[in-house]
């Protein structure tokens, strides 16, 4: 099973990952918990503590501090933007859409899904990772796979459980 530390090492080796290194990980956790009004699942806490700010061109959805006190309202809105569908946005896709972690109560292993802004983030459109580490590795190859026309289902090489996510199918089965 992929771990977050493995995914981070791999992405750092490929120079595809940036950190903030500002020591704000715990602040992020507290702020996000306050915004969503519930404790975060352990895998989300681990991700926030890693302070990842981007994978390739995909920026992380993080609360943003305003000076030494307070937080930026716009960034707070982004963090809350998937609450109505029981999800927590992790990364922007660069065109207004979001990759979000499943927050459904009782989920044993939390998958990551794509949410379409043109559909009002109304539902998970397709699965992009059966776990956060698998998602990060898939995301790193996202644009390259499209540019080089990798075969359909290339994601299964990285994430064999991608087609078993409960809330939405993988992209090649999505409408």
């Amino acid at each position: 099973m992929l771990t977050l530390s493995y995914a981070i090492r791999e992405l750092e080796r490929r120079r595809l990952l940036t950190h903030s290194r500002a020591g704000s990980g715990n602040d992020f956790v507290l702020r996000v918990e306050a915004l969503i009004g519930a404790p975060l699942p352990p895998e989300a806490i681990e991700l926030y503590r890693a302070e990842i700010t981007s994978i390739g061109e995909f920026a992380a959805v993080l609360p943003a501090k305003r000076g030494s006190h307070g937080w930026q309202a716009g960034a707070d809105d982004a963090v809350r933007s998937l609450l109505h569908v029981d999800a927590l946005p992790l990364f922007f896709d660069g065109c207004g859409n979001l990759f979000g972690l499943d927050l459904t109560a009782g989920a044993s292993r939390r998958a990551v899904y794509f949410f379409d802004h043109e559909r009002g983030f109304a539902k998970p459109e397709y699965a992009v990772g059966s776990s956060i580490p698998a998602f990060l590795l898939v995301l790193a190859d996202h644009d390259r796979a499209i540019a080089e026309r990798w075969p359909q289902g290339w994601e299964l090489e990285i994430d064999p459980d991608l087609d078993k996510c409960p809330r939405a199918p993988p992209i090649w089965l999505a409408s």
Partner: protein
Amino acid sequence: MGLLQYTPDAAEMADLRRRQAAFDRARREESRRNSWMAVPALAPAAAIAALEGGAILAAGAVRAAPRALARAASLPKAVPRPLSQAEKQIIRAEARRRYAAAAGTPASSWGAQVHHRIALEFQHLMARADPNRLANLLALRQQAHSVATNSWAAFARGLNGRTPTQAELVAQAMKVDKLVEPFILRARVARPGPTPPRPLPKK
């Protein structure tokens, strides 16, 4: 007191010239890619030429029309249904790539997102218009992009299930343009900052 005049040094000018050349290359490349879009404009003229023996057309149009029409025959047909998520994914990746090529840097590097002026949900109604033509792409910060998204959502609700016309889509895109215009980010163009403080009067 006269206006302050900023004179860039030689290194800055060289850098500017290099960026202008790169931008020009990207613009020419995009123009070449989008040249088939001249077809709808030329088609009526070509039809008249067929009827009247070509006497009416200007010489340039006569030369261009057969080539453009021949190319049109090999174009894929307009998609008669909304785009699938897989199709949207490809279009969005290409949009990010083209915007970065034109601007010289990815939109994400300045905290922006690439916005499609005509929402991809309605792209299938725009016949053969390339969704990633540069004129259809804007860079917006997330909050401004949300304003655009909300406006398109209201537009879609207002249709009550009816299929909009192309004119309605263009009018809606222009309405959104007005909403977000103050927030459009452009490469190398600094947004006006706050009014600079006045210098203290000399004692």
